[in-house]
Structure formats: C-alpha cells, structure tokens
C-alpha cells in the first residue's frame, strides 16, 4: 500500500485492525443498507441506546428509518440452524441523538455478533475478541464484566416488587448506596436484600479479589449458576493472557427484558465514556421469534479522536511558494523533485493564514530556497 500509517486517523486505524482481528476468527462481514423499516425499531425501542430515530417515507409509501442500530437487522435476517453458530462482524454508520448536544449525529460503529448454539467457548471467544479489540485500539483499557442473572437471582430470592426493581437497578448503575438504602426503606424491604445489593455494588475488581466475597453474599442456586458462568469465562480469559484488565463490576446493568446473561463494557484511558458495550441477549432473540441464543458487542469509533495520535503537529509538511512570472514547468519540476524525496508538498502563491508547516520553501528563478525549516 502506497501510504504511511500515520495519515490514518484513530478510527480508520481501528476499523482495519479490528477487521483483520475478526476475520482471523472466521467472522464474515455483514453489510446493510442505510435504511430499515421503522417498524423494526418501534417494536424494540427499549433495546436501542436512544429512541429518537430519523424517519422518512420512501417512494412506495413505507415508513423507513436511518438505522440507529445494526444488531436488530442482523437478528432479523438470521435463520435458526440448530447446533450451528453464525459469526458476523460489521462496520456501519448509525444515526442517533447525542446525549449532550441533543442533535442527531452519524456515528461510526463496528462490532460483531455470534448467533446460534451459544456455549462456554462462544462466550469466551466473544469476550476475548472484546478485550483484544480494546488492546488493538491502543492504550490502557478495562473490560468490566457483569451478569444480569446474578441480579435477577437476588431479586427473585427476596421477592423484590417490580416497581422497586427498576429503582434499585438505577441505583446499582450509579453505584449509589445511599439512594439504594432509601429505596429499600420506602418499599419496606428487609435488611437482607439491602446488604446483598450493597455488596454487589461495592465488590468490583479482578476476579480473584472479589469472587469469594461475592459467593458469600447468597446461597441461591440461580445466583451461583450465574456466578459460575461469569467465573468460567473470566478464568478462560486469564489463561488466555488478559490478566489485570478484565474486572467484575456489577454496576453494568442492561435492560433485563433483553439481557439475561453476561453483559460487559470496555473503557480506554483518555476517553470519558465507554467505547465498547455488549452482552448475551437471548431474550431479545426470543422476542424476535428466534430459537437460538446470541452474544455480541459494539465499538463506538467516534470517541477515538480523543485519543493521542489524532493531534497533528503540522497541517502540511512542505509549503512551496512561487511568484507570478515563474515558469509553470519549473514549478512542476520542483514539486516532482520534492515529492520524489518522499515529502508532501502544498504549492501556493501566498502563505495561507493559520497554516502550520514543517518547512517553508520559495521557488525563485527555478531554484528552491529554504525560508524556514522546523526539522
């Protein structure tokens, strides 16, 4: 390839690195159109990050949407093949409302889905690819792992009423122990559930530092089954070399209507919001009348420009100034000479305002003179 890696922006580098990574494990690319039927999203609004969708009517009078999500389309188009697993990755633009600016934005998203007979190996492979994705993008990362079954087991054990569950889930998501205590008081729930959920919020970190205390929080079978599944995948990740950066953190809560198993989020140092989000969403598959399970994740590439590497010291490498009267052939010769040396050259009659360049050259009577050189 005839260009240097440094001209690629962080999100472009990530796309290529991640594509190579996913293909290494046999994932094939899923390509889709910009538009989907609006109905697909209307029926599954809670699954979406934001329920504000750009819609328009097409020439046949159908209500279409600029896609806010890729997973739903992938599920819609899979077939249930018992015993088999379909593995796809994607790199698509999605259209969502930004939480902060409250305006629609086009967001580059990449990710993968593993659909079918999901077992321990498949869970491990997807989490391993999530960890590797973060590592490839670069810098220090943390992959937080949680399991919705742990929380629902605790709720069921203590017969927590549905109204309270939503409020408790919000407190867990905020690591908010004081409001959690207030909710338990309001709904007159026993000290037991408050202690267990407070324990869940406070116990986070590498597997070995928290697993035994987590196990001690409750004796229920469903609770331990969910912890077993979590421990199994984390140990496999450890033996695969992902020590230290994979942590348990139950403040990761995804909608219980869609996720009943593992859920996880990835963070990169230097980026203030999570860049990776995923989970096992068998319940969504059921909702869409599919019999098999599914696990996957998405990587939000628009945040990557905040990472180091996207700050250029110079807008241009070399600027070559020429005057009226200079022969155009002489200008072309000079440019060929400079680009032949591997330099990039911007030819101008006047130095553009606010432009920073490494070298400033002037062409005078066919000869190149150096005006400035920052090395």
């Amino acid at each position: 390839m005839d260009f240097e890696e440094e001209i690629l922006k962080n999100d472009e580098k990530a796309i290529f690195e991640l594509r190579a990574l996913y293909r290494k494990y046999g994932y094939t690319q899923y390509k889709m159109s910009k538009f989907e039927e609006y109905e697909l999203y209307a029926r599954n609004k809670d699954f979406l990050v934001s329920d504000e969708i750009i819609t328009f009517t097409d020439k046949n009078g159908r209500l279409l949407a600029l896609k806010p999500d890729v997973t739903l389309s992938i599920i819609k188009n899979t077939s249930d093949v018992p015993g088999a697993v379909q593995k796809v990755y994607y790199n698509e633009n999605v259209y969502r409302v930004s939480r902060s600016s409250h305006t629609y934005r086009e967001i580059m998203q990449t990710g993968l889905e593993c659909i079918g007979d999901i077992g321990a190996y498949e869970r491990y492979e997807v989490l391993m690819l999530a960890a590797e994705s973060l590592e490839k993008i670069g810098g220090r990362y943390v992959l937080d792992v949680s399991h919705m079954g742990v929380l629902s087991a605790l709720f069921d054990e203590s017969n927590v009423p549905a109204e309270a569950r939503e409020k408790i889930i919000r407190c867990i998501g905020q690591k908010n122990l004081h409001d959690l205590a207030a909710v338990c008081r309001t709904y007159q729930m026993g000290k037991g559930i408050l202690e267990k959920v407070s324990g869940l919020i406070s116990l986070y970190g590498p597997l070995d530092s928290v697993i035994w205390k987590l196990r001690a929080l409750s004796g229920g079978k469903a609770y331990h089954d969910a912890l077993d599944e979590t421990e199994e995948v984390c140990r496999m990740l450890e033996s695969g070399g992902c020590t230290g950066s994979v942590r348990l953190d139950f403040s990761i809560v995804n909608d219980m209507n869609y996720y009943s198993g593992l859920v996880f989020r990835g963070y990169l140092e230097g980026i203030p919001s999570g860049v990776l989000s995923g989970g096992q969403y068998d319940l969504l598959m059921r909702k869409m009348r599919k019999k098999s399970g599914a696990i996957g994740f998405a990587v939000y590439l628009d945040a990557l420009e905040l990472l180091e590497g996207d700050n250029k010291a110079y807008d241009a490498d070399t600027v070559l100034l020429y005057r009226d009267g200079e022969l155009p052939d002489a200008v072309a010769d000079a440019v060929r000479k400079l680009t032949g040396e591997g330099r990039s050259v911007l030819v101008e009659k006047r130095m553009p305002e606010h432009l920073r360049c490494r070298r400033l050259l002037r062409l005078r009577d066919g000869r190149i003179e150096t005006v400035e050189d920052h090395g």
Partner: protein
Amino acid sequence: MKTMVNVALPKGRLGEKVYAMFAAAGFECPEIRSENRKLVFRNEAAGFSYFWVKPSDVAIYVERGAADIGVAGKDILLEYEPDVYELLDLKTGACRMAVAALKGFRDDPEKTLRVATKFPHIAEAFYAEKCRDIDVIHLNGSIELAPILGLSDVIVDIVESGRTLRENGLAVLEDIVPVSARLIANKAGFKFKSAEIEQIRRGLEEAVKA
C-alpha cells in the same frame, strides 16, 4: 508521578462548605484560599486539583471527563440525569424540591395546570406519575414571581427555610424530593483511578459522619 484526580467544585456558598469537607478529610490545597483569579488549583504532591465551576455545570465537567469527580446538588442530577456514578451523599446544602403556590390556591383537576420552574424535567416527571396534564413554563430565576403575577398556577422550585415563599404570600403545597450535595464520578475515569477516588470517598464519608 502520582495519579492526579481532578475535582470540580461548585462556585458559591455550597462550594466553600464542600471544600472545607475535603480539607477536613485531608485533601487540602491551601492555594485555593488566597485571593486570586486562578481557575485551577493543583496539589501535585497529594495528587489532586480543584477548579471552581458554575454549580449547574459540575455534572457536565464530570460526565465528559474534564473532572474525575465533582460535587453537584441532587436537583441538578435529577434535572439533567448525567451518566455518572453517585458515590456519596455529603448531607450538606440540604433543602427540598417542592410545589408551591399562592396561599389558598386550589387546584382544579379539570384544567391544565400551569407550572413555572427552573427544573422542567423534574416537574414533568413528577406530574407524569400523577397523570396530571401540565403546561411547563421554563424560567431561569425569581420563580416565585410567576404565580404572584398570574404567569403560572404553581411553581416547582428549591425550598430551604421557606422564608422567601412566606414573605411573598406563597406556601408549599407538596414536597417532591429532598435535595443535598452529592459526590459524583466519571464512570470511565473511575475505572482507572478507583483506588484514589475510593480514598477520597472514604475520607469524605468520615467527614460527613463527624
């Protein structure tokens, strides 16, 4: 080099009280007390920096990672719902969000209730739970004027002692939620600085209990 924790403090009376709590917990930055126009105060040795921010902006600085932690009132957190961790109730700046109106006001459920407020999201959520149809009038200050001048039927606002209301012939109709200062943290920053942030949280928790 020690990991720096960046702390956004709300400008004003609450911020002074909160800084005093940080100082009592051992997280001092003496420079902050001197009269100057500086905006950022660093204590490199101890590993933290403070900056003063408009109270309603603290949550934005924390949510976007410009600050790792900050102190914001529960009213701001309920109104803007930033995606942050809420680690501690500092139990200071205590007041409450309430519905108030002119003394003797009677709500007619057949009419749309006109509600003046600085907190439209809180007001809408409160009345939605009661399935009450309302017309929200979003104002930026001196909310008590609205019912006096007939701009609104009621107001949804912060009430401390209730003196301002009483002096203007208004009375609290209903309490919505208690409000106090909360310690919040950026979720991603927390992942990489959890030891340092937990240390600050524990220190403040002791200061609150004292």
